[in-house]
């Protein structure tokens, strides 16, 4: 049986977005956006195409510099140093799965999980949980879009990181797999994790909504 990470020891206990403004290519996407996310909570970002959902996730992950405002990560003893929190406390799954097509599923997962602080045992358990263990030795190019996405989701499940930033995580998944990942997200939240997801379809877990308007 899978043993999830105990995220009560998690580095990041809450995320605070304060008066954030983001501009891309000289065009303002949104401004004065503030919300918080505490351990055990999920927030879905909604908004039309181009409203800045992906950009917001990348600002929180530190890849885009905001035009104004700030992102704070709070740990057990107050505010965390931002770079350290990003390097050890959060995980991002973007539009792309970030998988090398010429390597096997296991090689890709094992590296990614160890890189973000997990172990081979947790990687294997996550493959079982997402029902892709039998694909372990196949090259990624042999996998379908849904199977690749499940492999990418296994990275999140297997890494000891409390804040998940997800960009359309469910898009290529069928309904059974959406429900399965819903259970894994619920388990993550129950152990003190946090989920911030940009979605068009509703997430299969209870979540607050934050709407971005174009």
């Amino acid at each position, binding site marked *: 049986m899978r043993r999830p990470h105990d995220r009560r020891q998690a580095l990041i206990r809450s995320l605070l977005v304060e008066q954030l403004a983001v501009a891309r290519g000289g065009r303002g996407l949104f401004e004065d956006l503030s919300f918080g996310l505490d351990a055990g909570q999920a927030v879905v970002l909604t908004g039309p195409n181009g409203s800045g959902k992906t950009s917001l996730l990348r600002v929180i992950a530190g*890849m885009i510099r905001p035009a104004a405002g700030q992102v704070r990560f709070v740990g057990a003893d107050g505010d965390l140093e931002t770079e350290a929190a990003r*390097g050890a406390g959060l995980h*991002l799954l973007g539009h792309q799965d970030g*998988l*090398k097509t010429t390597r096997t599923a296991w*090689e890709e997962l094992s*590296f990614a999980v160890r*890189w*973000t602080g997990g172990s081979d045992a947790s990687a294997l358990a996550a493959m079982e949980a997402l029902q892709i263990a039998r694909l372990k030795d196949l090259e990624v190019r042999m996998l379908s879009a849904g199977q690749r996405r499940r492999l990418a989701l296994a*990275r999140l499940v297997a890494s000891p990181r409390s804040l998940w930033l997800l960009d359309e995580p469910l898009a290529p998944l069928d309904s059974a797999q959406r429900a399965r990942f819903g259970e894994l997200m619920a388990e993550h939240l129950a152990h003190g994790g946090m989920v911030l997801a940009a979605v068009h379809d509703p997430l299969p877990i209870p979540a607050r909504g934050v709407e971005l308007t174009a």
Partner: protein
Amino acid sequence: MSAGVLLRRELALAWGRGGGPLLACAFYTGMAMLLPLAAGPSPQSLAVVAPGSAWAALALASLLPLERLFERDFEDGALDLLTLGPLPLELVCAIKCLAQWLATGAPLAVLAPLVSFALGAPFSLMPLTFLCALIGGLGFAFTGGLGASLALGSRRGGLLIAVIVLPLFAPPVIFGGGAVAAMAGGLGWAPGLMLLAAYSLAAVALSPVAMAAACRNALS
């Protein structure tokens, strides 16, 4: 620990499907084969240009695998993942270049004295040629990585990398070629080798900062 995990991945990627190092070695041998056809096959004229042209061909062969060094991770989103790891991006870039050196630079360095010898350079030059190619390869890998990171996201990146990087390859080609030529002429070869080592070490020390900045810029 994490550095070792990343280094193993980079080496596996370099040696994996596509065979980058073998391709570079084949390219190197191919260029060495063309040279006698262009310069004339007489041993006397070849022996004069052999060490220098073997060295210039080495610089060109080092360019080949650069296109895939960062571009591959950038295209499939893996670079996002690398920025979220426990190591600073500067160190990630340095490890990628180090792997590049181990996977491609080292085989080319083994090949360099053989190519030079085959072109007619005296046997006594082989150890120094190997040493220069090995040390110079480190500089090629790091300055090459700089070019590769600057070209991220551009179309025809490979060509752009060559245009950025070739001028930066001038100093090691001068120092390395100079050291070998000095030995062939019976002069002191140590200063050339020292300067070559200094160039490579400076590249190792300075280029990771620029590579990380270029990667951040490409990701934002």
